[in-house]
């Protein structure tokens, strides 16, 4: 399975990086989020009644950058590639191999985006728990791969789908931990545990094992959702 999926996954990766500006933005946006947005995020959180400290704000901006970029990418991978993926499956690759290749490409991009965000975070303000922060940022990206892929499986139109991804991202941002003084849906957002990890890492605090398990579960669940979404997109009929 992997011997066929790996070269296909590499081809999918090249497909997205064919446009030089995409590569530039994949580096620039996470760096921008951490360098610029983080400086105002603390003020923004205070305005909303939250208590996000400056260092934690810098950390969480890295997670959100990785999340939005990965979610948008996964959405377009599913919604834009249905026809091509079905033809690949019909040509002999099979739906599961195509789905595995797509997941591989999405995860590779997520790792790259997360790495840029983490590197910028480390250079800008340093992180007292770098391993924790790196894992949490990657978790944000992986969770949003699941969200973007699920949206892509349900919604074919690129405009509607990208607006839904933006709506999901907005719900998440406004309900993030320490961002507001309210409870509400904050307990149910998919990145809540990853955000808590990232805020703790940014603030120099360790996190309990339960938080790690929750993040691992959320990321694994999201990747499973993404795998099913990619499989559905490449499934041949009849």
């Amino acid at each position, binding site marked *: 399975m992997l011997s066929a999926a790996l070269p296909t996954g590499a081809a999918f990766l090249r497909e*997205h990086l064919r*446009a030089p*500006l*995409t590569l530039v*933005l*994949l580096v*620039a*946006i996470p760096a*921008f989020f951490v360098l*610029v*947005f983080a400086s*105002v995020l603390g*003020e*923004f959180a*205070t*305005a*909303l*009644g939250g208590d996000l400290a400056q260092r934690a704000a810098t950390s969480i901006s890295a997670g959100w950058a990785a999340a*939005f*970029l990965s979610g*948008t*990418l996964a959405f*377009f991978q599913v919604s*834009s590639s249905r026809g091509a993926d079905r033809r690949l499956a019909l040509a002999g690759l099979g739906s599961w191999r195509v789905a595995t290749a797509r997941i591989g490409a999405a995860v590779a991009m997520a790792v790259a985006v997360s790495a840029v965000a983490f590197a910028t975070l480390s250079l800008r303000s340093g992180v007292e728990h770098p391993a924790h922060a790196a894992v949490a940022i990657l978790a944000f990206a992986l969770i949003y791969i699941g969200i973007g892929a699920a949206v892509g499986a349900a*919604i074919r*139109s*690129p*405009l*509607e789908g*990208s*607006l*839904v991804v*933006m*709506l999901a991202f*907005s*719900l998440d941002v*406004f309900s993030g931990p320490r961002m*507001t*003084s*309210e409870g509400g849906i904050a307990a149910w957002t998919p990145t809540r545990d990853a955000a808590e990890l990232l805020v703790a890492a940014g603030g120099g605090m360790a996190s309990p094992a339960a938080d790690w398990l929750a993040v691992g579960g959320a990321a694994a669940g999201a990747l499973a959702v993404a795998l099913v979404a990619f499989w559905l997109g490449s499934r041949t009929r009849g």
Partner: protein
Amino acid sequence: MAFRDQRRRPLVLVLLVALPAYVVARSIAQTEATPRRIGLPGGLEATTTMQDLHGAVMAGAVIAFVAGLVGVFVMQSALAGDRRLVVAGYRPGETIVARLAVLAAAVTVAAVASVAATAVYFTPESWTPLVAGLVLTGLIYAAIGALAGAVLDRLAATYLILFAALTDVTIVQNPMFGSGTPDGWAVVLPGYGPVRMMVDGAFSASFHAWGELALTLGWFVALAVVVAIVLRRAVGPSG
């Protein structure tokens, strides 16, 4: 026909209303009434609260994103299919006007939803400049999105709109951050004029943003002309 195409996808209409309404309403409702001193057009100053500031500018931030995305995908749809319409007998001008009308209508729907959500929590000194600034923000970013959609693939164009709208309208022009007045260099960004109009309408009883209005209209006309040219070249005869 262009509007029939959009009506076939009711989810777009729902999202053009729901996304701005949710983000605007949620952000204003959650914001604390912390005092804040800001600079207004014309060199004036005003003391207001962070909540009222959010009421004045949040709609602009959302509409920039939404309109930019609409612009990207309307342009890509036009590039994919409008040439065939011209070959089938439509005049190029008809297809261009149709696409521009769809952009304007989408911006209007998002603007109405944003204004309605804003009105629940915030009453500006004058609605006219605030609404005008909001609509012009949407039209400018719809044009920017259209141009991005013409030269980039959908992923890169979406990322570019995120980057542009976040930098310009959400951060640089936002009086909630920094000193309360945009830095001098902010004037070169497209969001400067319309956001200053919105701030002036929100907190000033009389209109002082004439220079900002002229700058905004300049941006809008220039971008609209370029979008029309791109669309015309896309549907015109080849060779």
